[in-house]
């Protein structure tokens, strides 16, 4: 073969996913050991970054693998957090926090499912879908502001740390170490779940839709249903992440549903690499940590610095950091043996 072959970002998802597993094991192992070597603020803040990462993965599924960009992830996240806050006031036989987690998954999934069903069935695509999701964020923010009797309006809502209960045994998550070891396995679980989803028939069809929706449709797949399902899964995970975030931060306010936060999620995923779940997770952790650090050293200019980092990364690697790394492992030549 004399033809020159140009490697493109994410030229072979299979290759990227294979090498990703090894990196994921190392990263999660290191995270599991972290509270042993670090303490105090690090152990407090890393779970929050991981929840941002969970939110980023919910967008990566939709945007990186389904080709559907959403600026509405913050809406589901905030709804999850409010559900967690409201549930703490309920008097029920079972642990209200567990109920709140289930409700946040159901609300995020159902809202995304209903919105997605109508939009995708009507053939709404691309930038028009983005605009609707943007509106979803703005509406959620406005509703949380206006319904101040329930949500506390601008003042926000305080949420006590949840407890884990197993039958009669109970573990209070007020301390940061048990909280850390609750959120880390859940993050790993969501990562594994999404990897499984993407490897399934559904995931393969979803990637096909990203690449060429008309072709997939002409092969006999009802693509609006696949897109609806992807959006619903994404909304459910964003809702779960939000509920955990609410109880971890002990506070939720309307800005959590806002456009600014929604945009941040898109930036995390773009920098980390939208076609990689791990890249998106680490993009969120890395950028959130960097923002936090920059706020401390340069409170005036941190957003500017972050903006420059974003522009540079996207200019250098359109597929984000994970896309750039994955491009190195993609096969580029035909096999020499035939058949």
């Amino acid at each position, binding site marked *: 073969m004399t033809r020159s072959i140009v490697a493109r970002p994410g030229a*072979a998802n299979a290759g990227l996913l294979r090498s990703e597993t090894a990196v994921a094991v190392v990263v999660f192992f290191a995270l599991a050991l972290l509270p042993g070597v670090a303490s105090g603020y690090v152990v407090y803040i890393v779970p929050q970054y991981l929840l941002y990462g969970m939110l980023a993965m919910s967008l990566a599924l939709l945007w990186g693998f389904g080709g559907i960009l959403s600026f509405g992830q913050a809406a589901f996240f905030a709804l999850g957090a409010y559900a967690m806050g409201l549930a703490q006031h309920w008097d029920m036989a079972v642990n209200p926090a567990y109920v709140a987690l289930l409700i946040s998954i159901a609300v995020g999934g159902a809202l995304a499912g209903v919105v997605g069903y109508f939009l995708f069935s009507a053939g709404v695509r691309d930038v028009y879908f983005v605009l609707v999701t943007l509106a979803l964020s703005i509406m959620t923010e406005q509703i949380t502001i206006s319904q101040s009797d329930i949500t506390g309006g601008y003042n926000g809502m305080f949420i006590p740390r949840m407890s884990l209960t197993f039958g009669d045994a109970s573990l209070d998550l007020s301390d940061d170490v048990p909280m850390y070891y609750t959120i880390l396995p859940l993050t790993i679980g969501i990562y594994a779940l999404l990897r499984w989803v993407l490897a399934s028939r559904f995931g*393969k*069809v979803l*990637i096909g839709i990203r690449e060429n929706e008309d072709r997939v449709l*002409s*092969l006999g*797949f009802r693509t609006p249903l696949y897109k609806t399902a992807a959006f619903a899964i994404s909304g459910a995970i964003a809702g779960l992440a939000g509920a955990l975030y609410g109880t971890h931060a002990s506070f939720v306010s309307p800005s959590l549903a806002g456009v600014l936060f929604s945009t941040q999620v898109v930036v995390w995923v773009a920098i980390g690499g939208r076609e990689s779940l791990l890249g998106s997770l680490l993009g969120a952790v890395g950028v959130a940590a960097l923002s936090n650090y920059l706020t401390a050293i340069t409170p005036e200019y941190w957003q500017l610095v972050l903006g420059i980092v974003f522009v540079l990364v996207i200019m250098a690697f359109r597929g984000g950091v994970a896309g750039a790394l994955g491009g190195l492992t*993609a*096969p580029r030549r035909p*096999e020499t043996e035939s058949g």
Partner: protein
Amino acid sequence: MAELLRTAGLSKRFRGLIANDAIDFTLQSGEVRCVIGPNGAGKTTFISMISGHQTPSAGRIFFRGRDVTGSSVTARAQMGIARKFQTPSVFDRLSLHANLELASLGKRSTAAERQTRITEVLDITRLAPFRHLPASVLSHGQRQWLEVGMLLANRAELLLLDEPTAGMTAEETHATALLIRRLADAHHLSVIIIEHDIAFIRDLKAPVTVLHLGRVLMSDSFDAVAENEQVRSVYLGQG
């Protein structure tokens, strides 16, 4: 041979323009048919109505005797009507294997059946050496074959090919004719091909339907069509 596809009075109007005017057309199972005609004859409109991408203004379409006029693209694809677009429409960034696997997921089957099918399709289309490469590295002609391969992996029974040899080299065009002949003879597929390339149509040794101004001018063997005065005058622009 049993009748596979029939259109009765199939018509399509775009505002004032009549693209297809009461086309009666029959295709037998296992038959290869070329549809030719000058630009604007209504060829692409015709197969777009069969695939479901366009809705007829009048007339009916029957597939295996069943009226499919109102069925969606997806429903027709499920029944086995598969369309190859004029420009190659494949999944550029996915490997050839992934392209074919995705196509094979369209119908219920086991993983082993799909694997056998994919291997078979890679052999038929002579694309096996490239199976782990992204489709973007293929030549234009190879991409066209990959798309035909995807329709096979999708277990299509009726292939609608819109100018499959457009932009191909003479060698690729000849290979494509042989490929389509193999599909019909060895795999019992039925094929409707829109073409301009006379050498290709001759290689195919298939009956030809000539469309002109949205109507069927004639349907006959290649030789009969090539010698027909009316067809010649249409192609010379006097029709």
